[in-house]
């Protein structure tokens, strides 16, 4: 069609050659269309392919220039490539990634632990209940920080399954689970556990009395505690708290003893040990460790209170007993018979002071007998005394001073005494409980109230 139009256009030119050409045109146009037909036959397929390729190229350009489409294309390929590289060159991948991932992980873990430690520490510092104090005490005993101990206690622990199994037969006696919906085949597990125990015992325990105590797989463990006829298997996650194994052992021994006859001749009855369920249930509860520590705390609290009460009672009774021994109702006195041939001395010298030797120790009777005689050297001067009253009970000393020997005689409050001398804060006093008997010695001045002031003559510069 197009060629024909060209022909009609050129046909208007007046040139002769062109005229000739026009004359020849019908023939050429025919051959042209034939050629075109030939081209279509020969090149049609190539043309179609080129057109398709152009379309594809356009689409490809669109994908490459559009980031979302590009990601969608590359991601699966990249994933596949990375997976294959990790599989084939694991070490190389680790080495390549470690500088980045290792540092990243370490930083993240360190930060998380620091946060946790800070939280725990803050909690420890701000709370003052008994459990905290107890934890601090435990930590001090163990040589760790209280926060570390708290952290340790905070580690997860969970008992998921509990199997009570006949030791010889391997038959299941009782099974408890924290999630009854996901109960495993407890019968088979019991038997296989027993087979494994036997296998280990036969293989490695020849001639030894030991038992298989634990089987570990991944994050879970099977803890085993054995008694004479039964053993207990606990499937646990996490870190086993202190005391859990002891509790397991206690339970299994209790059961073994309580059901000894049944277990010794066990006939396989399924419900024979159903009553042991409550005893074992406490082990499977999630908050076991907390409960257990609370129980320990309670026990310790009771113990401390008991000790305190005992201490107080002991002090009271001890003091009373001592009082009874040291100062009986009628004060034990050293009675010095008035053999006073002593002549008063105007200035009583320390040498004039009666000295009581340890043999003066009185017997706890009111009729104490004198065993010593004063060594005072008599003088002709009359003795000057000042009347006084005890305002508090006080021990009588042989010389002034708290560190001097005591006479085991106490002068009780309100007793009337005579002050014979004074040295610093001490008075030398005389007490006459009865006619013909007296106690002479030194007491702290603060316990003696005198009617009159102490005259200077009674004040001695040297008690000796």
């Amino acid at each position: 069609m197009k060629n024909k139009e060209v022909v009609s256009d050129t046909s208007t030119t007046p040139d002769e050659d062109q005229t000739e050409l026009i004359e020849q045109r019908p023939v050429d146009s025919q051959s042209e269309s034939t050629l075109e037909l030939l081209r279509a036959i020969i090149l049609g397929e190539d043309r179609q392919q080129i057109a398709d390729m152009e379309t594809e190229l356009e689409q490809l350009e669109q994908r490459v220039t559009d980031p979302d489409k590009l990601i969608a294309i590359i991601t699966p390929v990249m994933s596949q490539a990375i997976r294959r590289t990790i599989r084939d060159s694991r070490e190389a991948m680790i080495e390549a990634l470690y500088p980045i991932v290792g540092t990243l992980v370490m930083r993240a873990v360190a930060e998380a632990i620091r946060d946790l430690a800070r939280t725990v520490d803050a909690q420890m510092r701000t709370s003052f209940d008994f459990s905290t104090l107890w934890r601090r005490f435990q930590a001090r005993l163990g040589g760790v920080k209280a926060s570390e101990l708290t952290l340790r206690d905070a580690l997860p622990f969970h008992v998921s399954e509990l199997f009570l199994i006949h030791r010889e037969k391997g038959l299941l006696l009782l099974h408890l689970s924290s999630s009854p919906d996901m109960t495993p085949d407890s019968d088979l597990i019991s038997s296989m556990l027993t087979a494994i125990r036997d296998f280990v015992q036969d293989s490695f325990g020849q001639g030894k009395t030991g038992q298989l105590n634990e089987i570990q797989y991944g994050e879970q463990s099977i803890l085993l505690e054995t008694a004479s006829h039964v053993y207990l298997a606990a499937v646990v996650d996490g870190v086993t708290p202190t005391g859990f194994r002891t509790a397991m052992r206690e339970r299994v021994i209790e059961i073994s003893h309580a059901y000894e006859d049944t277990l010794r001749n066990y006939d396989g009855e399924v419900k024979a040990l159903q009553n042991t369920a409550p005893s074992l249930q406490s082990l499977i509860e999630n908050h076991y460790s907390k409960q257990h520590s609370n129980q320990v705390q309670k026990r310790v609290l009771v113990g401390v209170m008991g000790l305190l009460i005992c201490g107080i009672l002991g002090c009271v009774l001890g003091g009373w007993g001592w009082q009874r021994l040291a100062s009986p109702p009628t004060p034990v006195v050293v009675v010095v018979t008035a053999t006073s041939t002593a002549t008063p001395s105007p200035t009583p010298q320390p040498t004039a002071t009666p000295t009581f030797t340890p043999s003066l120790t009185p017997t706890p009777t009111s009729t104490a007998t004198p065993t010593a005689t004063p060594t005072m050297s008599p003088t002709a001067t009359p003795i000057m005394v000042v009347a006084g009253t005890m305002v508090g009970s006080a021990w009588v000393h042989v010389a002034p001073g708290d560190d001097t020997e005591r006479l085991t005689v106490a002068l009780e409050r309100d007793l009337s005494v005579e002050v014979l001398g004074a040295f610093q804060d001490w008075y030398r006093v005389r007490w006459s409980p009865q006619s013909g008997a007296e106690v002479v010695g030194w007491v702290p001045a603060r316990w003696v109230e005198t009617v009159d002031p102490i005259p200077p003559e009674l004040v001695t510069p040297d008690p000796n």
Partner: protein
Amino acid sequence: MTSFRKKICLLGDYSVGKTSLIRRFVHNRFDDKYISTIGVNVSRKTVSVSPAGNVVEVTMMIWDMAGGEEFSQMQGSYLRGADGAILVCDLTRAHTLEQLETHAHNFLRINPASKLVIVANKKDLVNQVLLTGDQLDTLAVAFDTRYFRTSAKTGDEVESAFRFLAQLLV
């Protein structure tokens, strides 16, 4: 209904068909690889029997022992506490019956009060059978029990043998 669990052991020479019998009788079991690992595999089957008119449920914990020499030392531990045993021989191999006597004595030494049943397996191999009924009967009488000619391949008499033992145990 009263329920019991009983420990049963399968004893017999290598390749007499112990595991095949269990496969036929039991559907739920651990993988057989345990036998090659620790010398024993445990399966379970619960059957109901009525020994004296009362229906009793018996869960049989069946311990399949490895027949090879390498686990012979282990067997003592595995046999301990068993309530009964199925002694398996191969009808096409005469010496497997001779060995049953040894197995039975070993078993009864450890568990004197337990019950036994004799199973002569592979009865489907009709043309190759070497053991006679008299031979089996003699052994059964010796151990005060009865024998079953079974085929683990066809299942013939397999269940009967296990049920008979369950009946003996309650």
